């Protein structure tokens, strides 16, 4: 089962960073060592507001299929999926451009707002 192909109500993206170690001397000078060639640790937060319970369940089912935060997965690239509404290149807010894949950072948060209607927040993190 793929990640639910639904357009979120809001989305935030943190592009992460390269693995860098920074050393600072007492005189203030800084030395940085680059430990890898791939940017990682990108974070994608998706909010789905007032969706049907059936659609909210898709996230719970997918979370179960990925064994919670264990397995990585790809996001749908289409305009009807989690990257829908993004006018730039879809890979810019993805993980695989830098050799990463998304996994759940934590369990999906489901809040039921009335019978049959729920809001879901999903937090994903890109890992190498």
């Amino acid at each position, binding site marked *: 089962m793929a990640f639910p192909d*639904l*357009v*979120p*109500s*809001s*989305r935030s993206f943190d592009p992460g960073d390269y693995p860098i170690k920074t050393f600072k001397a007492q005189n203030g000078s800084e030395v940085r060592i680059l430990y890898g060639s791939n940017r990682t640790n990108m974070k994608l937060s998706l909010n789905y*507001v*007032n*969706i049907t319970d059936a659609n909210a369940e898709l996230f719970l089912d997918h979370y179960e299929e990925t064994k919670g935060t264990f397995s990585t997965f790809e996001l749908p690239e289409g*305009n009807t999926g989690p990257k*829908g*509404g*993004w006018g730039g290149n879809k890979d810019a807010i993805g993980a695989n451009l830098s050799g990463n894949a998304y996994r759940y950072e934590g369990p999906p948060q489901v809040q039921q*707002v*009335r019978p049959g*209607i729920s809001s879901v927040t999903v937090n994903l993190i890109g890992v190498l």
Partner: protein
Amino acid sequence: MAKVYTGRDGRLLIGGTEQLKVTNWSLTGALEVLETTTLGEYQRSYVPGVQEFSGSASLLYYNNGSGRNDAATALKNILKTGSVADTDTVSLQLRLVEGNTNHDISLTAYITDVTYSASVGEVSSAQISFRATGALTGVTI
């Protein structure tokens, strides 16, 4: 026949009893809507949420000579020494009369606010506000 309704046609019933000396009543119905707009859409969209019904009424503080004072009875829903229980609901009918036909909105409500005043040069009255619990029990308007 054409008909314009006025205050002369208005009635308020509490517990099935037509109240004495009612000077006004009002009812507001509202529907909460939940936004379902998603990224990439240009128009907002909604699904229906929960409904709410509330209103108010004013009754003259009037004793009919037989000891009946509907304003006092309504006030006692809150103005009492004990606490308000879950079962302290009132059955309201807001009515407009047209000949032998009654146009009613019926609901079960809690009295949520009461105001009771006396002023020099004015008739004493009681204002009550109510909020429906559950769905309307009847609509024949």
